[in-house]
């Protein structure tokens, strides 16, 4: 079930809470406490905006266990405006095609399900930036 494992990550999954390095100002997501850029301690929390652009994308047809219900789905690497990159699904895609460089924003969606009696895991996905918000 791994309830505690997913509970521990709720701030990252639901709110994209990361860290900022007090020494070199690098923004860090996911949080890792040691700055990957300068190697110093970095434990100051930082709230990411959830905005970024598509670095690359693909479609998953042969889904792993727990993801079959959502297949096929679009997986992407998103370059966040603050610098770091994240792996996430794209969602709310209408007829518009996806392109590298396309602006996207974070939303909260169901990530995976472990059968009828298993737990549902929620977290961030990204959708094309809405025109009104752009």
């Amino acid at each position, binding site marked *: 079930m791994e309830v505690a494992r997913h509970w521990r990550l709720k701030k990252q999954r639901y709110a994209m809470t990361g860290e900022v390095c007090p020494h070199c100002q690098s923004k860090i997501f996911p949080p890792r406490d040691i700055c990957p850029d300068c190697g110093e301690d970095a434990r100051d929390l930082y709230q990411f905006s959830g905005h970024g652009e598509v670095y690359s994308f693909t479609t998953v047809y*042969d889904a792993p266990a727990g993801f079959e219900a959502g297949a096929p789905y679009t997986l992407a690497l998103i370059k966040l405006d603050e610098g770091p990159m994240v792996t*996430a699904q794209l969602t709310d895609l209408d007829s518009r095609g996806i392109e590298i460089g396309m602006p996207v924003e974070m939303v909260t969606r169901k990530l995976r399900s472990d059968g009828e009696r298993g737990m549902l895991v929620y977290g961030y996905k990204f959708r094309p930036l809405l025109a009104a918000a752009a």
Partner: protein
Amino acid sequence: MTPPSRNPTNADIVIAGLGMTPVGEHWNLSLRELALQAITAALEDAAGLRPNILYVANMLSPMLSGQTQLGALIADFSGMRGVEAVTVEAAGASGGAAMRQAELAIASGSADLALVVGVEKMTDRVSSDVESALSTASDVDYEAVQGATRTAQAALLMRRYLHEHEAPTDALAGFGLIAHANAVANPLAMFRKAISPEAYAKAPMLSEPVTIFDAAPNADGAAAVLLARRGVFPENPDRPTVGILGSAVATAAPALHDHDDPLTLTAAARAAETAFQRSGLSTEDVDFFELHDFFSVYAAMALEACGFASRGTGWKLAQDGKGSRDSELPILTFGGSKARGDAGGATGVYQIAEAALQLQGRAGEAQVAGARIGMTQCVGGSGGTCATHLLGVLEVD
């Protein structure tokens, strides 16, 4: 920039024997039986030498076979009950990493004969189980939880590679074509049939832009190599002695998104640089390169990381006849992961066994004429671990 080359007559560790099973769907053989076949062949090849220590390279047994403690299991099953034995796991780099551990065991003085067996059993399970197991080599909390698979991550890299380097859509086709053409000469290969550029263009899509001809098949197989301290045991007078000239393992972030430049295999670059330093060799000395083509884009990135090509041009080393067995830098001489088949944690051991056959002049129809120095490299996950080896023919003392 490149250090001066030396004649590689010195190596403290030599290859005393090797053995491999066919790669494929072995529904009639268990994990331990596969390992035993490779070990038996390697020990016969070594004229009866027995190891002091055993390293088992394996990636997925805990998940796909529900079996841990392979060191004891395989030592016991192969008639070596009591010997020191452990498993080495570094995802797809397990084989090369286990070889490195065996070399360190000999270099430390604690063993004169170290046996490495790489073994993997993939085909007992359905593909969604295998994809799930393979995705555990990613950063599970931040990649696998998003539904990222190894195939999808290769697709993310391949799309970006073609986009950023403004390469044609079939730029990476050459790797699959070379692998399949070379596997025809390998009796142990899974697919012994050449493919045409037309077939590549029409191949079924797995995850755009990755097609079945960009992706290596997950397979069962085992390979074993017995390493010996040089000078302690008589060398086989019927074949050239092949030694480990240099080796290195390096790591990088296991998560693709944590790389400053996902298109650069930094662990491969580090491992290759260190192995070259330790051997005193450079790229110009390498007669052939068994790289890890588990997806075609990683083959191109490996050539770039190891210094054979500049960033964005690795794919050109598999174009216009380059990369074939009679070219300047032959790659995938026994078919690579694409056509020999990718037996997970055994891959690095297959590569080293194949390189040794080339250098010993025992490669049969797959022989690269005049090969004196060979390089191997295997990759774990999307580049989190890389293990690089340089092997060479040693001169008689």
